[in-house]
């Protein structure tokens, strides 16, 4: 583990959840520099024999997801579908939620409906309220 978390730092931590399935915590920005890391890490989990029942990506500390980050999520989803693993995107921050909605991928990259109740609810869509963005937390 890294000792210091700079704004730009990116980190992936894989743990087992209560059911013994892999859960990858994403810290930092998922972009051109880091998307491949996530694809590799997730693909390694999916490549296990037997394949896990489900794979969770914990996005609580995801600060940014650009188009290459989204491409990585789509690739992981594709591979998960191939091996019959259920992919869950947990704790999706509003910015990620918004990208998924605009790109029409929120149903493909689902939070796994049944379990969303226990997660942070998504914030209201800025586009509909028309309110300016709050400044990012520092």
């Amino acid at each position, binding site marked *: 583990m890294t000792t210091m978390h700079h704004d730009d730092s990116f980190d992936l931590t894989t743990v087992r959840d209560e059911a013994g399935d892999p859960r990858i915590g994403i810290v930092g920005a998922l972009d051109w520099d880091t998307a491949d890391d996530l694809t590799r890490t997730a693909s390694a989990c999916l490549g296990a024999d037997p394949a896990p029942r489900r794979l969770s990506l914990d996005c609580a500390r995801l600060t940014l997801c650009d188009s290459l980050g989204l491409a990585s999520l789509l690739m992981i989803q594709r591979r998960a579908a191939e091996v019959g693993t259920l992919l869950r995107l947990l704790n999706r921050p509003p910015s990620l939620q918004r990208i998924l909605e605009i790109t*029409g991928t929120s149903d493909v990259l689902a939070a796994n409906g049944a379990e969303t109740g226990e997660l942070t609810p998504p914030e209201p869509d800025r586009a509909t309220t028309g309110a300016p963005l709050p400044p990012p937390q520092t």
Partner: protein
Amino acid sequence: MSSVGASWMRAPYPALVVDAAGAVVEANTRAAVLFPRATRGAWLEDVAPRWLTEAHRRAVADGTDSLGHVGGEHGEWSLEAYPTTGSDGHVVWWLVDDTDRLLAERALRSEQERTAFLADASSRLLASLNTERCMEVTVELAAEYLADAAVLVAPATGKRHPLATGTGGRVTHHSLRIDPAMVPGLAEALQGFPPVPSRWIDPAALPGWAVPEGFAGPVGSVVVTPLPGHGVSAGALILLRRSDQAVFDASEEVFARVFAARAGAALSAARLYGEQTGITATLMAELLPPALRQVHGVEFAGGYRASKDSERVGGDFYDVHPGAGTDQETLAVLGDVCGKGLEAAVLTGKIRNTLHALLPLAGDHGHLLRLLNGALLTSRHTRFATLVLASVRRRGSATHLRLTSAGHPAPLIVRNDGTVELADTSGTLIGALPEVRSSTTHLTLRPGETCLLYTDGVTEAHGGPLGDTMFGESRLRAALAECAGMPAEAVVERVQMLVSQWLDDNRHDDIAVMAITAARTAHLTAVDGHTAGRYTA
């Protein structure tokens, strides 16, 4: 009578004995070589240089001890003269030949000059990455410092050789069909063989093109030296001197080669740069956004600002495919390709070509997007594109739009009263998922109203007065509310300007904007006729 003995005559140093009145009394063997006319009784001032005559006068007046020694030049020699007092008020001048030292100093000075010249030449040669300019500087420097004129022969492009010729501070460029074999050593130099010694080249045998216009007088001597490039020859340099000038000596030939090596390196750097930018330009030409104009009463204006972070070029694009006639729809597309650099560029190119091929099917956006998705889908990656399709047709004062978003931020509509509406369309991104869905919206623009298509580089621009805020959709809406009734270009310019000011000097993604505006005055002018064909990719 002789004040000195026979051994004096054989002394290893020249010595002159001069009386108080300034007449030569005696010169030893070596002095006689230096001063052949210094016979007994000759006046010193007639046979020796002035500095020695003057020194003698002072030595007689003040005594030799106070004078110390003097020095000066005499013909091709450099001498030091030490006076001692002889009998009868005679002064014996002992002369030391320090010509070698002087020559060494001169050589050193010229070496320093050459080094300084090379340093200056290098920085001037390397200043420009433009091949012509670089040839020019080479010829200019060579004609100024190395010779009376210089001709640079670059390797042939096609059947012609680019040439730069210079003399008297003027450089001209030519492109000529020449036979390098006409100049001895030139063909070899162009292939990078070692230079032919200048004495082997007969100036009379030079062809006319090798002597620059305005060269005064017949050619006396010629040096041909290769310009070594990186791996291949960068050309050859011909140096010319007039017949009234000294011929090139060996050290000058060596120096010309040293200079040529620097010029060759600079030239090949410039050539490499030119080739690379040429290749990039060819690649980019296909990807550059087209200049947009009015089509059948509808204005299309586009603005594109590439990310400065060139490695991360996202690949935003837009296109307008004008309808064949006023009753045909014009299809406008604006999109954003995921990825960076060449990969993104290749995907952009593929999308634009496929869309062009699918134009006849533009009547059904959903169908067109499904076909496009099928064409882009690959098992190798999930790189995708998001885009907006806009089919536009003006009928009288009503401009009808069909808009479909494929995973892209929905367009904004600017009404004449300043209201800004979000187009009600959404859909799936293209190229990553086996199935795509989309919803199309129909709307009408009145003259002066605008539909704005944009990429997320606009809304995600990071900056503002405090430096840490996203531009966001609400600011874009507020900006557009001020653009009611503006021509398409003005809307684009306004949005670009605000985003750019918002960014200040921050890093940013590609930013693309397209305004589709129902012209306020729909005069179908000649411009349409001139430019209609230009939109088709």
